[in-house]
């Protein structure tokens, strides 16, 4: 601890002991100073025992549950003694040390509420929806990190707790304002099931700028499809380097979808009544992507998996690869070239970058809903979000994350690229079967990349899938 930090800590402790701030604020502020949660816990404990006679927080309401009174006025946080139990998480594996990051956040929580314990289970991206669905019905976990892509589906069902009253409670309004993407969550229906933690770009382009330069281009090569194609063709060195790696994401997640949107298509028309896939422009962009394979610019499907792509990129085997931002955590710390994150080139109609959110939600089967809510609030607060997003290679959903330490650990390319991605951001369409359609559609399109179907056939099949899944 350096001198300045020591002084700040002392000031905070004095303020806390003088009951000028709550224990919760005290902990949050200590964490914001960059003190390790374990150390924070020790400091808080020391302060508390130094002032045993001093009640650290106002007394909590005696009755648990969402009493009518709760919605009437500001609800004070429960006292440390009040919260106890075990909270079981089911979370997505963003980075290889995912559980460690959560344990870090949990330590902070425990500094305030020492009687709460945590279990973390990671689902697999391949089997995420199965695992979440069975866990929900089995009541196996309390808090889930879900992705926006399945949100419309969850919204239409009853497995997750409806948090609308808690989130819209006036006492929460101040906090709520700091969540940047609440509008998007609210847009899926009347219920609000959770709080966002990250804004995530699926399929950014990881670009080796040295090779771009060597091919005679700069970062503006993505401004139009022809220059993009020209550049990746020039960067392709047979038997050595592929210009553009696609189909690397698991199931090609959302890779084609953003092209579909860029070509003016979508799975459904805005009224969600009929499919909007089989358009000439969509066939055209699909054919464009398939031709990357035909021309030998893209490595054949199956050459580089999601797991293997970062290493191959770092080794110069691909000049560009398309993956989600979590891939930044998998890249080696030092890469012998300069690289950038860039969005996809524009399509015939517009330039689109597909984004989604990660959201924390609560199992409706969970007994202690209040405890779960406290935990969700903690996990999505500014410092937790800053810490987690920084370590998982995503963008925090909280506006205050930037001031609470975000950006200290993640690749600098991330922050640099955010404005680009935000400029072209588009989310999913609001119908419950979106993720099912997406999974089946991308697999179908990959059949076209593999040369087993023409672009027209694949697009027609996707339209068929849309009809089947949505039931129109």
């Amino acid at each position, binding site marked *: 601890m350096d001198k300045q930090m020591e002084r700040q800590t002392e000031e905070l402790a004095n303020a806390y002991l003088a009951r000028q701030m709550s224990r919760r604020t005290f902990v949050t502020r200590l964490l914001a100073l960059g003190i390790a949660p374990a150390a924070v816990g020790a400091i808080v404990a020391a302060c508390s025992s130094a002032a045993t006679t001093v009640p650290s927080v106002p007394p909590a309401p005696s009755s648990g549950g969402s009493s009518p009174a709760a919605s009437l006025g500001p609800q004070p946080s429960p006292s440390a003694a009040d919260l106890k139990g075990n909270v*079981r998480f*089911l979370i997505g*594996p*963003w*980075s*290889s040390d*995912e*559980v*460690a990051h959560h344990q870090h956040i949990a330590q902070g929580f425990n500094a305030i509420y020492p009687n709460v314990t945590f*279990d*973390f*289970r*990671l*689902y*697999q*991206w*391949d*089997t995420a929806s*199965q*695992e979440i669905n*069975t*866990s929900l*019905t*089995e*009541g*196996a*976990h309390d808090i889930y990190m879900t992705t926006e892509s399945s949100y419309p589906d969850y919204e239409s069902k009853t497995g997750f707790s409806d948090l609308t009253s808690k989130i819209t409670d006036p006492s929460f309004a101040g906090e709520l304002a700091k969540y940047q993407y609440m509008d998007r969550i609210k847009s899926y229906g009347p219920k609000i099931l959770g709080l966002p933690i990250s804004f995530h770009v699926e399929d950014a382009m990881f670009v080796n700028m040295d090779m771009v330069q060597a091919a005679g281009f700069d970062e503006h090569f993505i401004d139009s499809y022809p220059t993009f194609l020209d550049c990746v063709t020039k960067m392709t060195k047979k038997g050595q380097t592929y210009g553009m790696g696609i189909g690397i994401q*698991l199931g090609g997640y959302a890779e084609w979808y953003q092209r579909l949107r860029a070509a003016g298509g979508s799975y459904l028309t805005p009224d969600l009544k009929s499919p909007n896939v089989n358009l000439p422009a969509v066939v055209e962009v699909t054919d464009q992507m398939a031709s990357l394979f035909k021309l030998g610019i893209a490595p054949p499907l199956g050459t580089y*998996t*999601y*797991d*293997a792509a*970062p*290493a191959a990129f770092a*080794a110069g085997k691909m000049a560009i690869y398309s993956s989600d931002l*979590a891939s930044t*955590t*998998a890249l080696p710390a030092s890469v012998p070239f300069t690289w950038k994150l860039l969005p996809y080139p524009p399509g015939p109609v517009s330039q689109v970058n597909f984004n989604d959110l990660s959201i924390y939600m609560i199992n409706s089967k969970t007994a202690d809903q209040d405890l779960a809510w406290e935990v969700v609030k903690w996990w999505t607060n500014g410092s937790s979000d800053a810490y987690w997003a920084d370590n998982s290679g995503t963008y925090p959903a909280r506006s205050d994350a930037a001031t609470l330490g975000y950006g200290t650990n993640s690749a600098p390319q991330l922050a640099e690229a955010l404005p680009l991605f935000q400029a072209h951001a588009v989310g999913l369409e609001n119908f419950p079967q979106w993720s099912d359609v997406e999974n089946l559609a991308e697999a179908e399109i990959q059949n076209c990349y593999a040369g087993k179907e023409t672009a027209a056939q694949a697009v027609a099949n996707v339209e068929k899938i849309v009809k089947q899944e949505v039931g129109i």
Partner: protein
Amino acid sequence: MSAAVEPRHGAPAALAAIAAEHARSRRGRRLRGLGKHAILIVVTLLLVAPFYYVVLASFKNSTEIFTYPPKLLPIPPFLGNYQKLLGSTGFLRWMFNTLLVAGTVTLVKVFMDSMAGYALAKLQLTGKRLIFLSMLILLMVPLGALIVPLWALVNAMGLTNTYLALILPPLANPLGVFLMRQFILGLPKDLENAARLDGVSEFGIYRRIILPLIKPGLVVLAVIIFTDQFMSFIWPLIATSSDDLQVLTVGVAALRSHGGADYGLWSAAAVMSLVPIGVFFFVLQRQFLARSLAGALKQ
């Protein structure tokens, strides 16, 4: 098995002729013997090479794994993969769960199957044929094809996320009953008759006469059930979602997609997964090989 290799009582003339022929071609025979060994060594190498390659990888760090030409001996061995596997994944818990579930299923099933086999082989039972036939017909239906109704059933029973969800459905497999029935049918009927006259109850006959006499069969059955259980994947994947109940196969499959490719960790997991079954195999070789034969549902 060795008894069966011995020549049957054949015509002495034939044996003599063969002996003469063999003497003449002893040299050719030795060559042919070498050829056979050569073939088997090649086959063995082909089958074992993947294991070696993975074991090798498990002792390399992430850069060494990618090195070409690959190091063919892991010297000095890198132990970080194993440290990580045992230290920061639930591997030991998964292993414990697998052994617990497989062990319980094996124990319960060996007893239930041998009892049912005894009933079907020896006891008077109306509709015995029908029951046996239905077991024989459903023998081959895999759990994977039944996940919809099975999950609904287990969920309705409130068993999801309990050990029971992992243990109970595999108990339904009728293969063991079939095997036990065959084994028990092979015992002379007079033995149980003698026991009946000696004043032994039916359960006593099962316990004091049948069980000791089919002991080899019981071991084979135990090996079959245990290995099948050890390998099972789709049902444990679906039946439980709690971390505490994760079995080895499910846990290892999960490692596969946890952010980034940790090849070293994967190879260590693959190697460690094979340790218990390899040890069992080494100890119970004969029974494991008989496992294959027991699959010979030859009527």
